[in-house]
């Protein structure tokens, strides 16, 4: 579906016409990312991070495929094969540092993309399915990134794998068998490393598949926008190409400047020194921490320090950690405010900027800190707010809040003049 005023695909050449009659792939691209996709004219820069995440996924897939040509997924030689890439493969260091830092930039893009959705209510009808698929992409990305971090087989790889798969152990009855199935043994070893490598190679393509569905679902209602007001006429939109291809294009360049500055001048700043020590099952690192993009969830996991009746604290932490993400699946039905954009929701805006954002920042900070006081207490308060925000505040807020008046149309919001309805 598209808006009736969308530009129509006209093959420019005879060959294009011939193709279009048989396999209209040019038409598909034209209608998805080209001039055939009318897009709200008022998107701000928060709408740039979806395409940016896509760019970094491509960076990850391309560098990853090259790394896989030189990497050896064997517990005895994995660490040395990574160093072989760093030292002896032509420009191997560049490929590896691009891949290691690319993961972080993918998550930066995806977090800002999710944050955009949370603030502007992009998850609301009729875009629930886009949001749900997005959460699936995020979960797949977390699994992929976690398994990727295990592959260099350093100390943090090994102990991270042990701790994360150990979480499943907390599940009653089936926990232990699940953990052994994940690891292919009782502790991380060659079997675990091999299956992680296999899945780490597979999942990005699954992600790419879900992204296709994510974009497909997006093109049914079309993009949301900062006012949250529906597109009402041709004046409200501009063709995706060249308008948003140009905007996305230069912004990708800007992001790549930050990315390359990171990968060439401080490539290990986001890593952990312990991962340059080969995995050693007999020596536990002083502080086992995952990569930064997992810190908020790790803080929630460690915030539970007391058993509840017969439920041990560890299981509570695991349940809470998974619930913290799973709650996003229910978000479109928890927040029933008919107004999408946070710009027009005075109370929601306060809870978002002074509640949710600081809360996630604190969780992120505490997740990377050692499990000591006062960090545990800070994560307890922040986790309590996190659950309260999504499960209590948002559902109640949509009942009591009086939203500010919405503009009549996107065009009016941008130009101050009413939208001229085409006759």
């Amino acid at each position, binding site marked *: 579906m598209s808006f009736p005023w969308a530009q129509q695909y006209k093959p420019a050449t005879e060959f294009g016409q011939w193709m279009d009659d048989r396999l209209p792939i040019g038409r598909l691209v034209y209608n998805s990312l080209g001039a055939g996709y009318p897009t709200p*004219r008022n998107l701000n820069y928060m709408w740039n991070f979806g395409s940016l995440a896509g760019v970094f996924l491509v960076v990850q897939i391309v560098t990853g495929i090259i790394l896989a040509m030189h990497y050896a997924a064997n517990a005895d030689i994995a660490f*040395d094969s990574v*160093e072989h890439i*760093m*030292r002896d493969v032509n420009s191997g*260091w*560049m490929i590896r*540092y691009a891949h290691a830092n690319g993961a972080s930039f993918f998550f930066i893009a995806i977090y800002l993309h999710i944050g955009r959705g949370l603030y502007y209510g992009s998850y609301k009808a009729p875009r629930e399915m886009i949001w749900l698929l997005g959460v699936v992409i995020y979960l797949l990305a977390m699994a992929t990134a976690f398994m990727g971090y295990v592959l260099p087989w350093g100390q943090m790889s090994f102990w991270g794998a042990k701790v994360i798969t150990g979480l499943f152990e907390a599940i009653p009855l089936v926990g232990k068998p699940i953990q052994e199935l994940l690891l292919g043994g009782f502790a991380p070893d060659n079997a675990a490393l091999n299956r992680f490598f296999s899945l780490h190679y597979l999942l990005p393509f699954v992600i790419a598949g879900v992204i296709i569905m994510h974009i497909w679902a997006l093109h049914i209602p079309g993009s949301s926008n900062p006012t949250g007001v529906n597109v009402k006429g041709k004046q409200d939109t*501009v063709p995706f190409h*060249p*308008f948003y291809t*140009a*905007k996305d*294009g*230069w912004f990708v*360049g*800007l992001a*790549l*400047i930050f990315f*390359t*500055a990171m990968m*060439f*001048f401080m*490539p290990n700043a986001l890593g952990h*020194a*312990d991962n*340059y*020590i080969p995995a050693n099952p007999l020596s536990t690192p*002083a502080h086992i921490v995952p990569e930064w993009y997992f810190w908020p969830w790790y803080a929630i996991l460690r*915030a*539970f*320090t*007391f058993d509840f009746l017969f439920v041990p604290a560890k299981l*509570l932490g695991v349940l*809470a950690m998974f*619930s913290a993400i799973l*709650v996003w699946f*229910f978000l479109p*039905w*928890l927040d*029933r405010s008919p107004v999408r954009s946070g710009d027009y929701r005075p109370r929601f805006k306060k809870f978002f900027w002074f509640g949710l954002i600081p809360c996630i920042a604190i969780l992120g900070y505490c997740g990377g800190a050692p499990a*000591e*006081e*006062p960090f*545990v*207490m800070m994560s*307890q*308060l922040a*986790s*309590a*707010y996190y*659950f*309260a925000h*999504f*499960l*209590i505040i948002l*559902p109640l807020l949509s009942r009591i809040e009086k939203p500010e008046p919405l503009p009549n149309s996107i065009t009016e919001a*941008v*130009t*101050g003049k009413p939208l001229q309805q085409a006759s």
Partner: protein
Amino acid sequence: MVRFFGILIGLFFAGMLVYSFGRGAVEYISNPPVKAVEYQFHEEPKDVSFTSDGPFGKFDNQQLQRGFQVYKEVCAACHGIRLVAFRNLEELGYTEDEVKAIAANWPIEAPAIDPATGEASTRPPIPADKFPKPFANDVAAGAANNNAIPPDLSLITKAREGGAPYVYSLLSGYSDPPAELPEANRPGIGLHYNAYFANLNIAMAPPITGDDQVTYSDGTNATVSQMAQDVSAFLIWTAEPSLVKQKQTGWAVLAFLLIATILAFLSYKSIWADVKAEKKKKEA
């Protein structure tokens, strides 16, 4: 329904967390955590700079050669650099012949197979060999060192929090334990006090014991600090041989991206000019 159950679950989690916070806070106030003794005496790495620091940093080959000399004469007896090959030394400015000589005269031989009998044997290393490990295996390394296995140094400046300044501080930071250090934290048998080491007591005996422990051929004064700094610089190189190349490539990439991004930005501006003009009218 979703909201009803949502609120119940939210109340449960938030309640549990607030309760845990309360219990933790009471415990924290009634029983404030005492900082471990290690924290009180532990010191952060000294402030030391290397020529390879910063976005324009370059290796000083003279210093790396001096550092290699310290490594060879002081460290190599116990610590390997198994990821580095003799041929890599050419990057420090040694000629091919010098590298051949360094390899051939290396005190530890490379593992080999006796061509006559097929049995395991050793031979003098050649430039293509990685530096041979000083001990055949971890058991031998532990047995010779009071059960403390000397770590391989190839990646040490990347594998320790604090990097090269930490290595420098550790090497030059041995001292007598302070008088107020509790008995339990004093170095036991075979341990040595070092405030830069995480638990204060390190198994490695002070490797650099005094000035002029090595004799530099370039005439540099071999103070303890100088030797520690030179070998740390050498270990920055072993950990990241392509460090300088990375920075140089980085500048080229940044210059390209900057131009490309400016061009892309200008084309974005020109494409949007008409649409933006409408918006400007509103503001006017």
